[in-house]
């Protein structure tokens, strides 16, 4: 799979857009994202993982350039996949060294999107490949796919609305692999009634989904880095 991806990357390198154009588009995306130094977002977090039973909850999302990102549920517990940082596009794009490769155009929900593939320069990078689908006109990223060595593939689907001019989505759907994760077998006695109920639930497709629906952003208020410690 990875090999195939690589081969197709190389093919695209020669057949598709010029690399310069990809860099230009990426720069546009970057500059749009960099207009937001920090934000505090209010959002509803939904976690949909087959072995997790977590209610939707109101959370606060904190962001500070370049890649500080934190989701907090005030007075409660929030649980997110370790790669959750990738939800933030900034953390994906900013600061890291990679080669941008154009990948042609594709269409998603009737929207024409340019595909940019990001290949890390550092050979030891955990990220193998990232693919961004960008709307050229607005420089908004609608989808990001990241393949890692250790944790499989992450996908982020973004939807824009009220905060599009800041490059901030109204909704992010984050999809990640859960196949490799095993809950430890508990040593305590389990109630048979609960077991049956758990067994009757659909097993899922081995993927977990986390959705953030933002209700509001407060932008550039000067968040302190200490908040992310």
């Amino acid at each position, binding site marked *: 799979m990875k090999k195939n991806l690589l081969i197709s990357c190389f093919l695209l390198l020669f057949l598709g857009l010029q690399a310069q154009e990809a860099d230009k588009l990426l720069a546009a995306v970057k500059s749009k994202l960099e207009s937001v130094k920090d934000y505090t977002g209010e959002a509803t977090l939904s976690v949909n993982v087959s072995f997790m039973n977590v209610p939707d909850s109101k959370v606060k999302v904190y962001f500070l350039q370049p890649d500080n990102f934190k989701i907090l549920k005030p007075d*409660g517990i929030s649980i*997110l*996949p370790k790669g959750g940082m990738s939800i933030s596009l900034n953390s994906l794009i900013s600061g890291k060294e990679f080669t941008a490769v154009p990948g042609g155009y594709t269409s998603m929900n009737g929207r024409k999107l340019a595909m940019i593939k990001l290949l890390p320069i550092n050979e030891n990078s955990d990220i193998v490949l990232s693919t961004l689908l960008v709307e050229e006109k607005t420089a908004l990223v609608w989808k990001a796919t990241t393949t890692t060595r250790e944790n499989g593939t992450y996908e982020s689907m973004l939807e824009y609305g009220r905060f599009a001019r800041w490059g901030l989505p109204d909704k992010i759907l984050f999809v990640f692999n859960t196949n490799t994760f095993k809950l430890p077998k*508990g040593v305590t*006695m*389990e109630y048979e009634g609960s077991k049956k109920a758990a067994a009757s639930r659909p097993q899922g497709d081995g993927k977990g989904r986390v959705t953030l629906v933002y209700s509001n952003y407060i932008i550039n208020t000067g968040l302190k880095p200490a908040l992310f410690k």
Partner: protein
Amino acid sequence: MWQLLRIELFKIFKRPRTYISFAAIGAIVALILLAFYADGNNYMAFGMQSLTQSFDIQGRVLNGYLICFIILQTLLIHVPLLIALVAGDQIAGEANMGTLRLLITKPVSRTRLLLAKFFSSAIYTILLLCWMALLSLVVSILIFGTGDLMILKSEEVVILEKADVLWRYFAAFGFAAIAMTTVAALSFLLSVFAENSIGPIVTTMSIIIVFTILTTMDIPIFNAIKPFLFTTHMIGWKGFFDAPVQWEPVLQSAGILLFHIIAFLVATILIFRKKDILS
């Protein structure tokens, strides 16, 4: 009947052995609370190791609600011993002391006497659980505060909203009251056959231990009989910590336990009515 019940309760609460249970629960809960107070975060880090490898968990996982759950989980397995200590003594203990024959020569029907004795055991059981609830829930909350409750099960991780937790504890303690009353009814029944209280206490515990082993072992032959063991249903209180609560199995378990209580009690009465008091 009320008169008899008062007499039986008076007898129970005048005995030193009654307070062993309250002291034992107090000591265990105090120890668990102390341990969590001193070193709770390390314990949590260790307990959630497998989860934190792949997930980021934010917020105060270690709170009063979680500690109450841990206490219930560890303690409820041992409470039957404390219940049997009193319920198993109800008839056998009187036989051993020699007071049973005096009781029976009083103008009171044996059935009423047994009912009074059983209900006083049930009241003791419920008071013991209230004591446990007070210590494990109220004191934990006072020390550690409230918060969302995260429970690690073998099938899933459940997080319950803070506001959605307290009623589950009330329901769980209610269910535990039924489960422990089943234990009381069993030792009460065994108490009829013995002339000292050690027999019924040991037998009750043996039955519960054997049944629990059968319940815990995941062996196909045993799985088939699991639904018929009352111990399987005794941990039904955990069902209240599912989201959403699976009412059908939980209510069914409660029903099965109630059926056991009634069956044990009826058997006790039938046997005791025909019994020659030779002690």
